[in-house]
């Protein structure tokens, strides 16, 4: 074991790992929040199994939470960990490869008995050797379980409840390693356990004892110092997950647009938190229907849009598949509708808790008939707020369904969020009744400039009309199967979606303005791509990033940007869906691809390696 050193770092990655019942998500969240309070940039990513409670101590039950703290801009939760907290051998085994060679591993040594090792499928009694950990890796065995028991021996709690507090001992210990004031942690605990004073008292005692334990074994431990972030613009900040930010984006848009918010949804991992968050907001008049299935989720939303609400449905890939036919109805009936797909690994049930970008082509094309709609994708957890808000604006102003392609990485992950002001957000002017209208209203009466149909809803006097999934006469709005009329309507619906491009921002490029290589990404990979591009720029490499949030329609300057660069590489967490889409939109460009379909985000190192190779070619 090395002697005590203080390591100053710009960025440090910590991974908390244990059984899915060990409270690692809470520990990680608390630690992230109190680091953010101290002025660090943060980016977090929970990585949990689909089993709710797999057998204790087994490899299948390991749940993790990774956070990256930085004094500079932090774009990702980091690749490899500087510090791993492993509550048992299984957690150690699953995460050992993800620790830097010079990293620190804190283990609960009480949980490394022979039976524990067997459960984690270790063959020998020395797991550290068996895993081939580098000699420079520092192992800190802490008797977490027994110390927690000792700490709470006067509390008269049963053994199970006592052991449930051991994550707080770990938190206290980590607070010491990172020179975090334990009072801040206590403050968070006070909020969390407001209504459970006994549990609060126990947790506070354990967290303080964990911190003190760190101090007492001071001599043998490396500690870290990360300065305050100086990059971050001044203002009020909080830490927000992508799913919560999405829900709040809808709420903000509803208020800005003067609409009531409706969500029809069926529970599905990893999107359910959006339903939870909106179900909480009855105080803001949000109506949520937990529907009988995915189809009813979108169909109730379509009904609410028909009634005049800002209507949304939230789901993940398999649910989007079930909603396809109803999406067609929303396109045909020209209803404003926001569909949130928090993408996960597919196909079929696939990898329900893991992240992927494999629903892009489904979102763009997965319907019968010529069925264009708007597709947008957020870049960061807090950016989910802006994208959700934009999706609502586009849906309401253009009378079209909009699909938001979020993903498990963004939805479950969190990042710093500078609190917005509603007054500063872009105005939303929903389609409404025509101002002056003397004809007979029908579902095809539209503003010819942008092809947006006027929105009359049940209850509007004198605007009774019939709408539906059958083709309509372009002028009269009545049923029509006339050949030329159908083609006119197909074109009109496409033109309406294309016209959205007139009211979205131009695509920007970050990084070296004279780059030889343009990296193209979209959606949730922004953090990793930007980190890789920044790192290469710092090393003097000429690389730039065009990261897309508007997928369909694309920003109007897309072709111009792409054609400017000698080399282009499209990076995405699928087998090349955006690349193939771009080939159809901006032709005669040689698109290199970097693809990964492992249910995991990119790592910055694999990206820089790829870009370096491309630059050398």
């Amino acid at each position, binding site marked *: 074991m090395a002697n005590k050193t203080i390591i100053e770092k710009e960025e440090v990655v910590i991974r908390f790992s244990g059984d899915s019942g060990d409270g690692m998500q809470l520990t990680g969240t608390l630690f992230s929040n109190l680091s*953010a*309070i101290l*002025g660090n940039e943060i980016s977090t990513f929970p990585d949990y199994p689909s089993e709710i409670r797999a057998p204790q101590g087994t490899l299948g039950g390991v749940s993790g939470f990774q956070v990256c703290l930085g004094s500079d801009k932090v774009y990702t939760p980091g690749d490899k960990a500087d510090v791993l907290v492993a509550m048992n051998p299984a957690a150690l085994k699953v995460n050992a490869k993800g620790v830097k060679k010079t990293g620190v591993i804190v283990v609960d040594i009480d949980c490394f008995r022979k039976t524990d090792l067997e459960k984690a499928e270790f063959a020998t009694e020395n797991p550290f050797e068996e895993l081939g950990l580098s000699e420079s890796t520092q192992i800190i065995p802490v008797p977490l379980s027994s110390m927690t028991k000792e700490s709470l021996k006067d509390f008269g709690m049963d053994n199970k409840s006592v052991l449930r507090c051991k994550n707080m001992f770990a938190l206290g210990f980590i607070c010491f390693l990172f020179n975090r004031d334990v009072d801040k942690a206590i403050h968070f605990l006070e*909020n969390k356990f407001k209504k459970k004073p006994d549990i609060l008292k126990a947790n506070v005692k354990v967290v303080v004892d964990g911190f003190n334990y760190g101090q007492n074994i001071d001599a043998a431990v490396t500690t870290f110092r990360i300065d305050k972030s100086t990059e*971050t613009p001044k*203002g*009020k*900040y*909080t830490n*927000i997950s992508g799913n919560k930010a999405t829900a*709040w984006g809808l*709420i903000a848009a509803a*208020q800005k647009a003067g609409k*009531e918010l*409706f969500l*029809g949804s069926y529970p599905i991992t990893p999107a359910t938190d959006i339903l939870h968050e909106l179900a909480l907001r*009855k*105080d*803001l*008049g949000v*109506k949520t229907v937990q*529907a*009988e*299935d995915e*189809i*009813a989720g979108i*169909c*109730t*939303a*379509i*009904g*609410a*849009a*028909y*009634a*005049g*609400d800002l*209507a949304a449905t939230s789901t993940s890939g398999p649910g989007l598949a079930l909603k396809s*036919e*109803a999406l067609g*109805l929303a396109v045909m009936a020209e209803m404003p509708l926001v569909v949130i797909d928090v993408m996960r690994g597919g196909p079929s049930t696939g990898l329900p808790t893991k992240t992927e970008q494999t629903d892009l082509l489904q979102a763009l094309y997965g319907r019968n008939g010529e069925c264009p709609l708007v597709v947008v994708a957020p870049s960061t957890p807090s950016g989910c707020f802006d994208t959700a808000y934009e999706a609502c604006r586009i849906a309401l102003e253009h009378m079209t369904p909009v699909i938001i392609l979020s993903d498990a990485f963004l939805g479950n992950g969190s990042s710093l969020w500078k*609190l*917005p002001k*509603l007054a500063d957000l872009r105005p939303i002017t929903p389609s409404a009744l025509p101002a002056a209208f003397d004809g007979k209203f029908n579902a095809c009466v539209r503003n010819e400039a942008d092809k947006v149909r006027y929105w009359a*809803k*049940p*209850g*509007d*006097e*004198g*605007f*009774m*009309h*019939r*709408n*539906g*999934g*059958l083709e309509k006469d372009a002028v009269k709005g*009545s*049923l029509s199967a006339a050949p030329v009329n159908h083609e006119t309507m197909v074109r009109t619906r496409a033109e309406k979606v294309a016209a959205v491009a007139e009211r979205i921002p131009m695509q920007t490029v970050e990084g070296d303005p004279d780059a030889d290589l343009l990296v193209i990404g979209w959606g949730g990979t922004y953090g990793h791509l930007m980190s890789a591009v920044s790192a290469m720029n710092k090393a003097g490499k000429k690389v730039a990033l065009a990261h897309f949030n508007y997928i369909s329609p694309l920003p109007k300057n897309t072709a111009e940007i792409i054609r400017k660069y000698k080399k282009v590489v499209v990076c995405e967490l699928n087998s090349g869906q955006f690349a193939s889409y771009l080939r159809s939109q901006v032709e005669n460009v040689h698109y290199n691809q970097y693809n990964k379909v492992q249910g995991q985000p990119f790592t910055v190192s694999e990206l820089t390696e790829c870009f370096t190779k491309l630059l050398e070619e």
Partner: protein
Amino acid sequence: MSQYTAKDFKSDQYVRWCPGCGDHAVINSIQKAMAEVGVAPDKTAVVSGIGCSSRLPYYMGTYGFHTIHGRGAAVATGLKTANPDITVWQITGDGDCLAIGGNHFIHEVRRNIDLNIILFNNQIYGLTKGQYSPTSKKGFISKSSPFGTVEEPFRPAELCFGARGTFFARALDVDLQTSVEVMVAAARHKGASVVEMLLNCVIFNDGAHKWISERETRADRTIVLRHGEKMIFGNNRDKGLVLDGFNLKVVTIGQDGITEDDILTHDAKCADNTLHMKLALMQGPDMPVAMGVIRDVDADTYEEAVARQIEEVKAKSKVKTFDDLLATCETWDM
């Protein structure tokens, strides 16, 4: 008196159902019932799924939404939840409602959302040109069952009661008076009202309900139930229903010492649905088929409960606007 006539609920569209189709009669009943109930056409929305009957919204002078197969129930649920002030009628057929839309049907009934659900039951798929439906009798021969079906049909009342339905009524397409009567009752009932309309498909299943629909024998083979009235039927109004042990039995007034006093009185408001179920499941030749409002009980409606809960939470919460919501965040200055 309502200020409306049936005409106020008609659109200018040419009605395209086959001549002789039962749908013509049912839409007339609906429009008459709407006029009688008196909700303005612009406060009325008619939502349908797919099938012959689901074309109905196009012929209405109200707001209308022709959705997709089986999903009218879910669209109507969203509409009514979003705006409880709109009177919503859902038009559906035996295939739309009980096959592809079966799940939505039982859930709208379970939620007791205030919809008037008109189930057009002609025991056949008409729009796809003649396949058996979930209500076709076992052994029914159709294009998709050339040797007869081998499966038991649904009886809609069982699904409705199984889903804890609060309103169930039935009428024959050819019986305009009872049709209008049950539809008015359905519209006035707060909650999910299921009206099973037995109608004829003149092309693919002509005469499916012939045993009960023929004018000469109809009074003997059906009984129109009315709340608070004796369960008496028959051409001579001399037949009635009594309980025999745990079962219903047909008796003749004046025979075996039976008087009118012995005949059961219909209680559509009874919370327990056991007798309603027995009445709804009666079938020939031994028993008359029950028409009229079989069950009509009061219960909390979904959309009202949703609105009430919102008001309750609003009253207690400090969060009134999005900015208030932001103020609930644990924040720090950077």
